[in-house]
């Protein structure tokens, strides 16, 4: 376009992409099975209880997905230090004044694009835009919260050391009931987050035409360079 060239940039390395889709699959599984745990459906009677393990399987799937989810998340945190600059932790958490100012300016721009739907200028950043980065940071906190409360509850059914590392949350919240309620409520954060997230990704792909969606599959984004 008018003198600009389109460049291909390798943004999301394989660990980030892998993390993303494993995470999305886990969150979907956890939300579905979690909802079923909180509000069990009526299964047609299939005979005596000893012949069936339906609810047990639902919970089992929840727990397996939970472990995958947790270690996948740890892997992403590691990659926040080891990965390329787009995956770096300071994309989510600008701790230097300079970065903060830069990301703040960009976040305002993004809000103009997304909410006021005012202008469309090519974004400065190639990786996550600043507002998205902050939202992902918020979701990382939610991941952490869900892991802590989940493993805190799981500690009651397990002798493994990992869940017991989180057992402190139960006295802190005043008991398993409260932990469960919070854990349940947080499911709705994930549902609402995913709705908005998926929509916005489509939206940005549509209005910016930089191939955002496919970037999470193949790793490449398209950037305009003005010469």
């Amino acid at each position, binding site marked *: 376009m008018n003198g600009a060239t389109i460049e291909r940039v390798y943004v999301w390395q394989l660990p980030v992409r892998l993390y993303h889709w494993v995470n999305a699959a886990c969150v979907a599984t956890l939300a579905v099975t979690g909802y079923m745990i909180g509000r069990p459906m009526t299964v047609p009677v299939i005979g005596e209880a000893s012949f*069936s*393990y339906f*609810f047990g399987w639902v919970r089992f799937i929840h727990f397996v997905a939970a472990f995958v989810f947790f270690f996948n998340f740890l892997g992403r945190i590691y990659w926040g230090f080891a990965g390329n600059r787009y995956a770096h932790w300071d994309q989510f958490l600008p701790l230097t004044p300079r970065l903060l100012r830069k990301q703040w300016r960009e976040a305002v721009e993004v809000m103009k694009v997304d909410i006021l739907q005012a202008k469309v200028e090519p974004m400065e950043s190639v990786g996550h835009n600043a507002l998205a980065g902050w939202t992902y940071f918020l979701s990382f906190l939610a991941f952490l919260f869900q892991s802590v409360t989940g493993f805190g509850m799981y500690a009651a059914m397990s002798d493994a050391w990992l869940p017991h590392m989180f057992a402190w949350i139960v006295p802190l919240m*005043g*008991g*398993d009931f409260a932990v469960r309620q919070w854990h349940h*409520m947080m499911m709705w954060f994930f549902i609402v987050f995913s709705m908005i997230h998926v*929509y916005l990704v489509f*939206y940005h792909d549509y209005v910016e035409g930089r191939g955002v969606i496919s970037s999470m599959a193949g790793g490449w984004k398209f950037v305009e360079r003005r010469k």
Partner: protein
Amino acid sequence: MGGAPLSIWEQARLQGHSRRDFLQFCSWLAAAAGIQASGLSQVVHALDTKPRLPVVWFHFQECTCCSESFIRSSHPIVSDIILDKISLDYTETLQAAAGHQAEAALHETMTKHKGEYLMLVEGSVPSEADGVYCCIAGRTALDIVREAAADAKAIVAWGSCASNGCIQASRPNPTGATPIHQLISGKPTINVPGCPPIAEVMAGTIVYLLAFERIPQLDGLGRPKAFYSRRVHDTCYRRPNYDAGLFVESFDDENAKRGYCLYKMGCRGPVTYNSCGVIRWNNGVSYPIQSGHGCIGCSEASFWDNGPFYRHLASFPGFGIETTADTVGVAVGAVTAAGIAAHAITTNIRKRKVIAEGISESTPATKGEGESHG
């Protein structure tokens, strides 16, 4: 009184119990306290030789259901020995003394057995308005607890009131009802929650203190692990129905008759730590779930506020009793979906030009390049 203090065995003998009765009692208590067979001789030895463990038992904001539970303990020697004869120097509801005499007995124990006596507390302590909501002999419960705790060897908080505040501390807690462990620091405190606690659990806790002269292993909420390390749900005989997904849908349905799991009726078994499924109540006769009613979680903090009892999810604070986290979640989700739809529509209106420009700009370029890229 007078002379060397009698041991528990000597007291039992005086009461007319045989040695055989006594040994049975010891093994029963050891079992109740979760002590292995190899530790039995230690229990027998302790009850054989140890003199009375001086005990004062206070009653503050409570309903006396803990005492009621305790004296209905399935083994007669419990009430006979532990409660009646051996150790109890002061307890408002059961002592014969009254008025000044009772106060004198209390102070005698507290001075004579300074640092030695066991302090049992039933009931929470009001802290609002300087504690005037509960006064005994002209003093506030707050005062009494602080004074008695200062020289106590250890404190046992009986029941949910003393352990977590129970109904007095439920919202809005007008009297500022406070559990003991939040008032006293630096004293070993054992929480024995339940509304009431199981008699055998109470006896077991005392026996442990008596026999081993140390605090039993406690969990994160200060409860003896021997009784509170497992959830009601983990020891529930309806558990196979839970695992199969067979639930009672209403209290009068066929599934209730079949003995299906009460989870959907709001059973708190999965979030409640207690021994009901193992020890049961009234000499092992039954427990709520066996009688067809879900667990209400009476040994868990703020169980009154976690209502309604007959629903799995609590009501969402601030939205009235019918609203759960799911109702709120669905509403937020619907608003989000509506917002997304509106946004998508305005995008196509407001950005129509931009998008059209983009498409027209790129068309010529893609004609040639599109082919080479495949």
